């Protein structure tokens, strides 16, 4: 669906993206991740034909974005950051206008607008003036607009920014739902969102791709296994000695807690799960135990690690 080859964008004085190369297959939901200023929005603007790249090529939906931009634009739905809308128009007027502009035939326009309004949950505000809507509704009007012409590819630039947790959940559900029938490229800061919705993640930093994989394998690849965390009532020196002795343990962090308990973080050398052996040791010794978990690595850890690594 998207085939990007060595894309470069130079602004006066600095280079926003340096030679991006990636592809997105039909039916994928791909998350575009990166710190502010990494080049996410720039890349999306180029792919949606708003501005050209300085060099490199990209083929979207089978057409070159520079030489055949009208054909590309017919096949994509793009929601810019902050969802610009005309505040003086009514919701249904706006969607009708957008549908007409995107070439939806007059006969199908009304049903199409109704369909996407229902999908995005904005039927109850369809006669309201956009300027009077809350941020969450405006976001959904923007989403309805990107869908109104049934595009092959949907590009969303930070679709959940500025929403409250309930609205974020709704938008996320909507994106998942859409992903069943569309190809989606979305950018976001919210990492848990990517973990939940995307089948693949592309992390970029300073205009370069630093990682591209499924969320699960990214986590495994970059971090190894997670440490096991325990809260045990025993002397800290004894505990340290005991756990250092277990095979496969790299090191142990220990800190005292209330009531004689100690908190241990046992880091494995490899990818091993140390929960079972830790429990056995504690049972042998008869120490009181009140917590035993294995810390799961979040994509946030991976993100922070990857994007700060590059700074050095």
């Amino acid at each position: 669906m998207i085939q990007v080859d060595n894309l470069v964008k130079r602004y006066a004085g600095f280079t926003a993206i340096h030679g991006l190369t990636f592809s997105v297959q039909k039916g994928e939901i791909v998350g575009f991740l990166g710190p502010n200023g990494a080049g996410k929005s720039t890349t999306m603007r180029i792919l949606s034909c708003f501005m050209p790249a300085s060099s490199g090529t990209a083929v979207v939906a089978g057409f070159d974005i520079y030489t055949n931009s009208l054909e590309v634009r017919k096949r994509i739905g793009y929601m810019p950051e902050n969802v610009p809308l005309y505040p003086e128009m009514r919701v249904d007027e706006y969607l009708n206008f957008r549908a007409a502009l995107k070439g939806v035939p007059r006969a199908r326009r009304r049903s199409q607008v109704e369909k996407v309004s229902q999908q995005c949950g904005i039927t109850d505000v369809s006669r309201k003036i956009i300027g009077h809507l809350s941020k969450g509704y405006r976001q959904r009007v923007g989403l309805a607009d990107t869908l109104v012409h049934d595009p092959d590819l949907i590009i969303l630039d930070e679709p959940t920014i500025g929403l409250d947790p309930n609205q974020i959940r709704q938008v996320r559900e909507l994106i998942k739902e859409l992903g069943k029938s569309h190809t989606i490229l979305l950018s976001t800061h919210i990492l848990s969102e990517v973990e939940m919705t995307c089948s693949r993640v592309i992390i970029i930093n300073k205009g370069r791709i630093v990682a591209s994989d499924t969320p699960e394998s990214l986590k495994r690849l970059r971090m190894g296994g997670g440490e096991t965390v325990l809260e045990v009532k025993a002397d800290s020196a004894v505990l340290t000695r005991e756990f250092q002795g277990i095979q496969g343990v790299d090191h142990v962090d220990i800190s005292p807690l209330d009531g004689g308990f100690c908190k241990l973080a046992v880091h494995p050398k490899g990818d091993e799960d140390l929960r079972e052996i830790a429990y056995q040791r504690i049972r042998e010794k008869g120490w009181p135990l009140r917590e035993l978990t294995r810390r799961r690595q979040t994509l946030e850890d991976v993100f922070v690690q990857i994007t700060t690594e590059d700074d050095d």
Partner: protein
Amino acid sequence: MKNIWILFKREMASYFYSPIAYIMGICVLLQMGFNFFTYATFLSESPSDYSLMMWFFNGIFTWIMILVIPPVITMRLFADEKKTGTIEALMTTPLRDIEYVLAKFFSAFAFFVALWIPTVNCVFVLRHFAKDTTPLNPGPIIGGYIGLFLVGMLLIAIGCMASASTRNQIIAAIIAFAISCVLFFSGIYFYFHSTDQYREIFEYFSMLVHMQEMSRGAIEWKRVVFYLTGTIFFLFLTHRIVQSRQWKS
């Protein structure tokens, strides 16, 4: 073509969503009504070489309106889309840059025409109360309005260019007003150079001369061509500015 119409309808509607349409409409009607009344009273007391229509289209108040209205109705057109980012949503639909520019221009021009059309009434009101039964001479009236719309067309094209070149509406209005004024006042030089060789050049540029002639009922091709080429020139510049987004740096 279809896209121009779609966009034109939205632009026209957006004039009437805001109070701007009504305020400007009232201003034009009040001002021109007062204008007409003043000149009609004046002419009924002291006869003049100038006809009523010539006074009507060439009075100082009329010119203030002609010079002020286009910047005001065009300043929002392009600048606001850039400022709010709606340009990004707009230009990622299958819409050509030229369609975008033309739709904006035609909507502003249509609005300009709509503002002035009601002033035609003045003529009929006068005839009604003066119990004038002589056949109406349509030449000066039609000529005057054609002249007015030609001047308006050029000034609106200048306004479009100004609005496309900035994201600040106020700056757009100031640029448009400045260019319009330079054009207008350079026409006044015609009156200072009554003898020398530049006279003809200044006459060609002088909106004042054009309006006087046309409100006499004399429409010459060279004047129509002047306004058409001027309009096309400024729309061409507007298009290039809009398109500059697509230039590879």
